[in-house]
Structure formats: structure tokens, C-alpha cells
């Protein structure tokens, strides 16, 4: 536990010192053993050499029984040079082990001659014994005459002296080891502080940075070579990538290759290649690079943030950040306040987004749930939003989920499309007026018929009155009834016409598409009546209503029916069953489907994708603007519907319109 809290410096220091001490102790012990062993061995070897040399010299005196000579011999051998410290005694015995000569100067132990018996065959014997309480190595070698032994020489090596030598050696050795330990101690001290000083410095620096102090301290300034930050082109110009950092980072993103015309620094004055110096220097370099990178990208991030902030603040469209669970507005740009009639942004914050868009919640979350794993941007068009004082307007919404201040949120960008929609409506209206013009002949014919009937009736009444004939009451009733019916019929036509021509409201209404079909046929029926064209209606009576504008639906239907008529008239031949326009309605899967099929020329395959494009037309110049189907498409899409074409050339065309049915359980 203490180890954990210990500084790196102490860890290194103590572990090195510990290891050194351990090794030193191990070496000391080992060396001690080796020293003692080898020294003892060496000295006993020397003892053997002395004894052997003595044995050579003693042969003659032993044979002569010249004891004084032997005494002189052993004394000379024992006193020679520094031997007197090493040699405790020397004695020579005869072959019976009887003492012949020795170097003792006082009575020697009786059993000494038997302490280290030399076996008959051995050429030497070494044993440890004690003489006068002193430990001694007794080294015995034989004195031989020929192959027979005539005596033996014993050299007593002073073990104490050997031990003293060992001790001296050991002290020298240990002194040396201690010196090494001290030196290593000092080196370690130096080394650890050398290692940890930059670490501590970097730690201090990192602390400073985490506190937000990005100013390079003096020492780091020295590292930067005295360059000012402003000298870096990438620092001055955030559009310019820093190739040294970005390139290294972008190796796995090939799109980040250097454009040819992009200026680049041949050599970065700030980036330090951590190649030179030891690991500490490299760490400092890396750290410097990191710091530089942080500084650079912090600045870039700051600028980017500023950029997007200004885009957010000064953007032309309202942008909201809405929390998903509370639906409260967390942030909004000034434009939002402006568009939604708030005095300033702060008033908006905290307001429920549902106040602005009551329908948003359901719609959004339905789709949000569905699409959460897919591309996380959702678009909604032509939603009705309300300003602060509840006046509605139309917007297109773009929503994308984000994490905002730790909460699930959506960024909602609302584009005010009211004006666009009005423009669209005007275009539709204009188109409608054109249609109305096209209809006018038919309408006139339709109106003419009741007018004619009324004329006949009024002529009859006029003639009867002028002739003074009594008009029978039955006839009178019949004529006036008929006239009433005809007026009614004319009025109906006119009303239908008026309804068609009326500019549609912005808000949608419940419409029964069957009725729209009937109305269109009322107005346009005459145009389609020629000899070999039949209208076949197959309308589902139980059709659910849809949310749309009736007159726009009529416009769509009229367009399609007149197109069908045109297509039939363009066809040269006549199919076996005669030409027919079939209109079917039915409900399927919560959708209302309208099929308008003709037996006309059909649409060529290459043109099929283009028919809904504006200003595309197959008609001769002057016959049409090519806006009809384009507007039709726009209207159907507005109602969330779809329009498809099934066409075989010279077999006819079927337009299939689908609209979402209003859910009746609502």
C-alpha cells in the first residue's frame, strides 16, 4: 500500500538500491566463500610445497640420524621470510612416527604426531587440528628413500593467519563493494532525479493545461525554439490543414491527401520529431507536440464553434434544440424568436415545442421510433406551426437527434414555407384557371341545355299567354317545375364551377374522392363524349374520406381525365371493344386508391420518368405548357399521396393515385 503511494523516484531509487545491496550481499557471500576456499587451498598448496622441499632436504639428515641438522632445517624453513607468520610449526618424524625434529619452543602436544597420520600410500595429508588452542592445518608429506618411507614432514599452517589474510581480503573486497554501492547509490540518486524531474515538470504542465492555462511555460517556450505561434500558417488560417498533424492522423483516410495547389510547410517549426535524445527527451517532445496540437486544434475548434454559432445565431431559419423527453426548448436562435413572435431568445427557452407545433409530438416520435437506427435526419414538409399569438404558418422541418448537455435532444430546423406554399397555390390556381378555360366549352354546353329547356318552357308560356290561351294548370305546373329543375341544374353546374375555380384554402378538408370524380365528370363530361368513347365508373361507395382540397382533387382528376381523352384521340386505331376510360376507386391498407385507365396511345417508356417534370409535354407547341402533370404530382405529394403510371405503348395508360385515408378511429 505504501508502495503505491510512493513516488516513482523513490520506487526506482529503492528498488535499485535494494537490488544493488542484494547483489552486493550475494557477491560478498559468494566471494567470501570462494576467497576463503581458494586462499586456504592456495596456502595449503604452499604448505605442501614447503613440506615437500623440506622432505627432500631432510632425507640425508634422517638417514644420518643427524638431529641437529634436522632441527636447523625445520627452523630455517619456518623462519624463512614471511613464513614465520604463516607457519605455526614444522616437525619431522621417522617412519614410526617418532619425533625427530620440530620447531616448538615449549612442550608440544603428545598426540600431535598422530593428529594427521599419513597413510602409507598417500603423498600428502591435510587435516585440521588444534595446537596450543590455535587452529592449525597440519600438512604432512612423506620423506622417502627410494620407494620406502623413512619419515614424514609436517607443516602446521596457522589457520588464524590464514583467517587474518582472508579477513584482510574480505575487508578490501567489502570496502570495494561498499564503494561501488556508494557510487551506485549516488548514481541512482542522480538518475532517479534525472528521470523524475522532467516527469514532474510534465505533470505540472499537464495540471496547468487541465486548468486551462495554455500559455507555454518558459521551459516549453525554450523547446519551441522561440517561434511565435502566429508564425504557423495553420494556426493563422484555420482552413489550412496542418500537414504534420493531419497527415499523420489521416493516413487511413485517403480523402485527406494533399491537394496539389494547397500550400504546405516544408518543415514544421513547431512539430518536434521525437527521435533524438533519450526517452525523457522524447516524452517531452511528444508532450510538446501534444500541447501544440491541443493548442492548434483548440483554436480551430474555437473558430469552428464560432462559425457554427454564428450560423446558428444569424441563420435565416429558426433552429431549436428540443429535449426529447420534455419537449421543452433548450436553445433556439434569434431567428426562431423573430419568426415565432417572441421578443427574444430567452423567452423561447423553456417553452414547450408543442405550443409551436401541436402535432409534432406524435408525428415525430412515430417516425423517430421507426427510423432511429437509420439515417438520423428526418424531414417533414408543410407542417402548421403557430406563432406566440396562435397565428398559423407553414414550415418545413428538419430534425436530427443529438446529445445536448447530456440529454437526448433533437435539433429542429424550421423553414417558413408559407410564402412558397402561397406561390404554389397561385400556380395551381393559374393552372386551374387554364383548365377552367379548357372546360368552358363543355360548361357552356352543360349550361346551355337547362337554359334551352328554360327557353322552351318560357317560349311555351309566352306563346300561350300571347295567344290568350288558357294554360292548363297541369301544364303550368309541369313547365314551372321543369324550369325550376333546369335552373337548379344550371345553378349546380355553376356552383361546381365556382367551387372548382375558388382558390383553395390553406387548410385541408375531408373529401370524398367519389364526389370529386362526379363533379369533374359533370364539368368535363361533355368534352369526352364522342362516338366511340365510353366512360366506365367503378366507384367504391364505402370509400373512407381523405384529407385534401376538393377543388384541387378535381383539378388533378380533370387533368388526368382530359389527358386520357387526349391519349385516346391521338390513337389512330380503335380497340375491339371501343375506347373506354375507366375510373376505379377502392380502399386498401388504409389507403384510398384511384385508378384512371385509358385505352390511348400510352406513354413511351423513355418518357415515363419525365412526365411529372414541369414543362415536359408531348403535345405540340402551343397546345399545352407541360405543367399539368407536374402540378398534379405536386398536389398528390402535398396530401402525402403517391402517383404511379402503368403504361403499355398503344395499349393505354393507367394512373394510380393513392392517398392516405383518414383514420376513422381518430
Amino acid at each position: 500500500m505504501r508502495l503505491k503511494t510512493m513516488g516513482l523516484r523513490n520506487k526506482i531509487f529503492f528498488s535499485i538500491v535494494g537490488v544493488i545491496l542484494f547483489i552486493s550481499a550475494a557477491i560478498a557471500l559468494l566471494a567470501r566463500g570462494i576467497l576463503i576456499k581458494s586462499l586456504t587451498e592456495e596456502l595449503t598448496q604452499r604448505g605442501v610445497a614447503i613440506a615437500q622441499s623440506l622432505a627432500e632436504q631432510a632425507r640425508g639428515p634422517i638417514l644420518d640420524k643427524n638431529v641437529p641438522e634436522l632441527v636447523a632445517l625445520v627452523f630455517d624453513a619456518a623462519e624463512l621470510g614471511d613464513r614465520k607468520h604463516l607457519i605455526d610449526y614444522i616437525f619431522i618424524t621417522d617412519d614410526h612416527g617418532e619425533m625427530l625434529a620440530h620447531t616448538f619452543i615449549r612442550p608440544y602436544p603428545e598426540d600431535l604426531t598422530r593428529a594427521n597420520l599419513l597413510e602409507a600410500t598417500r603423498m600428502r595429508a591435510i587435516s585440521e587440528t588444534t595446537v596450543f588452542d590455535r587452529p592449525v592445518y597440519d600438512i604432512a608429506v612423506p620423506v622417502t628413500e627410494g620407494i620406502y618411507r623413512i619419515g614424514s614432514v609436517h607443516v602446521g599452517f596457522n589457520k588464524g593467519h590464514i583467517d587474518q589474510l582472508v579477513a584482510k581480503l574480505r575487508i578490501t573486497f567489502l570496502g570495494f563493494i561498499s564503494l561501488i554501492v556508494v557510487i551506485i547509490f549516488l548514481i541512482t540518486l542522480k538518475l532517479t532525479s534525472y528521470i523524475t524531474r522532467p516527469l514532474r515538470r510534465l505533470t505540472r504542465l499537464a495540471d496547468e493545461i487541465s486548468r486551462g492555462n495554455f500559455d507555454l511555460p518558459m521551459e516549453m517556450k525554450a523547446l519551441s525554439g522561440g517561434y511565435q505561434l502566429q508564425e504557423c500558417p495553420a494556426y493563422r488560417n484555420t482552413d489550412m490543414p496542418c500537414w504534420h498533424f493531419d497527415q499523420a492522423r489521416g493516413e487511413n483516410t485517403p480523402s485527406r491527401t494533399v491537394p496539389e495547389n494547397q500550400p504546405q510547410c516544408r518543415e514544421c517549426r513547431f512539430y518536434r520529431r521525437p527521435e533524438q535524445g533519450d526517452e525523457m527527451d522524447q516524452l517531452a517532445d511528444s508532450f510538446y507536440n501534444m500541447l501544440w496540437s491541443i493548442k492548434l486544434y483548440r483554436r480551430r475548434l474555437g473558430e469552428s464553434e464560432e462559425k457554427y454559432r454564428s450560423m446558428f445565431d444569424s441563420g435565416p431559419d429558426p433552429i431549436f434544440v428540443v429535449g426529447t423527453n420534455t419537449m421543452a426548448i433548450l436553445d433556439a436562435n434569434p431567428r426562431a424568436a423573430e419568426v415565432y413572435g417572441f421578443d427574444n431568445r430567452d423567452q423561447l427557452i423553456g417553452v414547450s415545442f408543442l405550443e409551436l407545433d401541436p402535432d409534432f409530438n406524435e408525428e415525430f416520435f412515430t417516425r423517430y421510433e421507426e427510423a432511429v437506427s437509420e439515417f438520423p435526419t428526418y424531414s417533414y414538409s408543410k407542417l402548421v406551426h403557430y406563432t406566440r399569438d396562435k397565428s398559423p404558418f407553414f414550415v418545413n422541418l428538419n430534425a436530427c437527434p443529438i446529445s445536448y448537455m447530456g440529454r437526448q435532444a433533437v435539433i429542429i430546423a424550421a423553414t417558413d414555407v408559407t410564402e412558397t406554399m402561397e406561390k404554389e397555390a397561385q400556380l395551381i390556381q393559374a393552372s386551374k384557371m387554364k383548365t377552367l378555360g379548357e372546360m368552358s366549352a363543355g360548361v357552356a354546353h352543360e349550361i346551355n341545355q337547362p337554359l334551352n329547356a328554360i327557353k322552351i318552357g318560357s317560349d311555351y308560356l309566352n306563346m300561350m299567354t300571347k295567344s290568350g290561351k288558357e294554360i292548363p294548370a297541369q301544364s303550368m305546373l309541369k313547365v314551372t317545375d321543369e324550369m325550376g329543375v333546369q335552373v337548379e341544374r344550371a345553378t349546380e353546374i355553376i356552383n361546381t364551377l365556382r367551387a372548382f375555380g375558388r382558390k383553395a384554402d390553406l387548410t385541408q378538408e375531408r373529401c370524398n374522392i367519389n364526389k370529386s370524380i362526379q363533379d369533374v365528370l359533370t364539368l368535363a363530361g361533355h368534352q369526352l363524349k364522342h362516338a366511340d368513347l365510353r366512360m366506365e365508373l367503378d366507384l367504391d361507395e364505402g370509400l373512407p374520406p381523405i384529407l385534401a382540397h376538393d377543388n384541387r382533387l378535381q383539378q388533378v382528376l380533370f387533368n388526368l381525365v382530359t389527358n386520357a381523352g387526349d391519349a385516346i384521340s391521338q390513337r389512330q386505331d380503335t380497340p375491339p371493344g371501343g375506347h373506354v376510360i375507366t375510373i376505379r376507386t377502392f380502399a386498401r391498407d388504409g389507403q384510398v386508391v384511384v385508378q384512371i385507365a385509358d385505352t390511348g396511345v400510352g406513354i413511351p417508356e423513355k418518357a415515363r420518368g419525365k412526365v411529372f417534370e414541369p414543362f415536359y409535354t408531348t403535345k405540340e407547341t402551343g397546345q399545352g405548357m407541360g405543367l399539368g402533370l407536374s402540378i398534379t404530382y405536386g398536389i398528390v405529394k402535398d396530401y402525402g399521396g403517391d402517383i404511379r403510371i402503368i403504361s403499355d405503348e398503344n395499349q393505354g395508360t393507367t394512373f394510380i393515385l393513392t392517398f392516405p385515408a383518414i383514420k376513422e378511429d381518430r
Partner: protein
Amino acid sequence: VAVLVFLAAALVLAPACDREPDDRNASSAPPGVSENEILIGSSLALTGHAKYLGIQTLRGLRAYINYINDMGGVFGRKVRLIAYDDAYHPPRCLANTQRFLVQDQVFALSCYVGTPTTVKVLPLIRQAGIPLVGMFTGANALREPFMPNLVNVRASYYQETRSAVRHLVESLGLSRIAVFYQYDAYGFDGLTGTELALRQLGLTPVARGSYIRGTTDIQEGLDRIMASRAEAVVMIGTYEPCAGFIRQAREQGFDPVFYAVSFVGAEELARRVADQEGARVLMSQVVPPPHAFLGSGAFSVVDEYDVLLDHYFPGDTPNSVGLEGFINAKVLVEGLRRAGRNLTRESFLEGIDSIASYPLGRDLELSFGPADHQGLENVYFTRLSGRTFTLIRDFKGLGPEDLRNTGSASP
């Protein structure tokens, strides 16, 4: 850090534990001393070519020891003397000394004769710490370096040769001086002393000749010295070769002044060259020459020696060799006395050290000190005169020719 220092200290100090116990001199009860006996050992030449020296020294020693024993000993302890013959042979001397130490366990040693023998046993004596009192040798090795348990009585060869060289050069006016020496420690010692003395006078030996100890083959040395036409020959040897040298030199017509150091043995040399008419033989002595002082009343110790020798060894003639043994005995006994009843080797040596101005006669006294273990400094000169050596009281007015042996003893 403290731990480290401690460890280092422990490592360094650890081996200090096993120190060699030194118990060589630990024996408390001194060997060779009992209630009524003190054992003294002496190894000297009782046979062989130097036996005269050993026999006479031993007689001088015994004369006094016997006398002391007869007087009741020292503090009731009789002095028992054990003498072994070494025949002037160093190994035998060594073996004898070891025997004294190991078997006989004597208290002290005394009256060793000869330089090579005594020098041979020096390490043994140093090691055993046994006192050795009075050696019949003037070897410098026994004086330097100082050994506390070695007690010299007589003057050194250096002193003898220095005096002799001075007299030869300054009194007799000789400058061509050769050295004839025994090729061993004794001879080298005398040679060195002579060379040192000559160097002080700005001279060097004109020739050096030597012989092997125990032999009488002196011809080679003689030839070398004769070739140098030396005026004087310093002889450092034993009486037999030295006598041979004088005799052969004169036979071959070489007639320098012969000078012999004390160790040669005056009486024996005189006996051997007495027939050399006209030979000029000088000899130095480190004890008063007995014949010169005997009966004069001047030296009590000479008279004492004379009386006791006559008492214990009737028929023997007093001589300087014996006198030296006698004086050694006196020093030994005086040391024992001064050591007191509680005799140890240490107290004995302290007793010797305390001897100061101990009178041996008129103008002759012994003095020792803790750092001075040579009792006498005197050097006497004698010249062969007839069959004896007579004392030269004064070199003044003496010429080289005056030294010739006229065959009759001059006073």
C-alpha cells in the same frame, strides 16, 4: 540512507570478529624455577675446533655458580646448570636450545659461545622470550636491533675492531690493512666492523681473505693477503686457523702485524704461536687479561675468578675466556638476586636492567639499563710476548717493530 550506512558499516566491521589470539607468552609460572632450583642452560663448544673456548667459558661460569650454590643459592634456590655441547656447530646449538626450551624447560640461557651458533638461535630466543645472558661473541646482530631478553656483557666486535684499527693506523702508523676472516656470521661481523672503522679513517681493506669454519685451509686467503703486501692483518676467526695463518704467513716470508679479536682466545693462540720468534701479534680483549691483573689487587673480579677456578677446577690456569664466563655468571646471579624471591623472566630482566655501576674492580664496572643490554665497554690490547699475551697499557711511543715477540714476557 541511514540503513545503507548501517549496512556498509556492518559489512566492513563484520570481519573484525575473528582475531588471532596471541598467547605465546601467556605462561604465568616461569619454567625452570622451582622451590629450590633454578635451571640455566648453556650450549657451547665442548668438542671440536673451538672446544677450548667453550670449556674455559663453562669453567668460568661453573666456578661462580658452584660457589653461589655452595653459599646456599639465590633465595634458597640452587642454580642448576645444564650444558650441552654444540661443537661450535650452529644446527647443534639450535637443537640444544630447543631441547632447553622444550625438554629441560630452563629458566634462562647463559654463556653461549660463538657468533654463528648464537645468531642461529636468535629467532628461537626471541620467540620464546627466554633470557640469554652473556654470550662469548661480540656480534652486532646480538645488539641491534635491541632485544629485551638478550643481555650482552662484553664489548662488541665493532668496538674491538674500531679500537684496533685506530691503534694500527694512528698509533702504529700503518695504512695497508687486510682482513682475514671466518666465512660465516662471525667473520662478516668482524669484517664489517673493520671496514667501518677503516672508512672512518678514509681507508679500505687492501685485501680480504677467508676460510671456512671448521677447516684450517687458509692458504688461499693468505695468498690473497700476501699479494696485497698488507702491513697489518685483522684476523677474525678461531685460534686454530688464525695460528695457522700466522705460522704459514711467516713461513712464506710474510710478516705483517697480526691482530686478532678477543674471540680467537688469547691463551690458546699464544700457545700455538709461541714458537714464532719476532712475530708481531696483537690481540684485543674485552675483559681484563687475567695475567696482567692477577694479584695486582687492582681488579677484584680477576682475583675472585682465580680463587674460585682454583677451588673448583684445580690446576687450570686463569684466562680471559674463562674470566668472561665468570663475569657472565656474576651478571646472571646478580640479576636473579635483584629479581627477588618471586622469580619470573620479566622480574629477572628488570633485575638485570637495574644493575648500574656494579663494580668488578677498580676502573671496571657493569652497567645495564632498559635500553642498554651491554654491560661492559672496555677493550684491552695485548701483544704476544713470549708464550703469553701481555697487556699494552699505552700505545704511546710504540712502533710496529716494538711489537715483535722477543720470546720473553715483558711486564
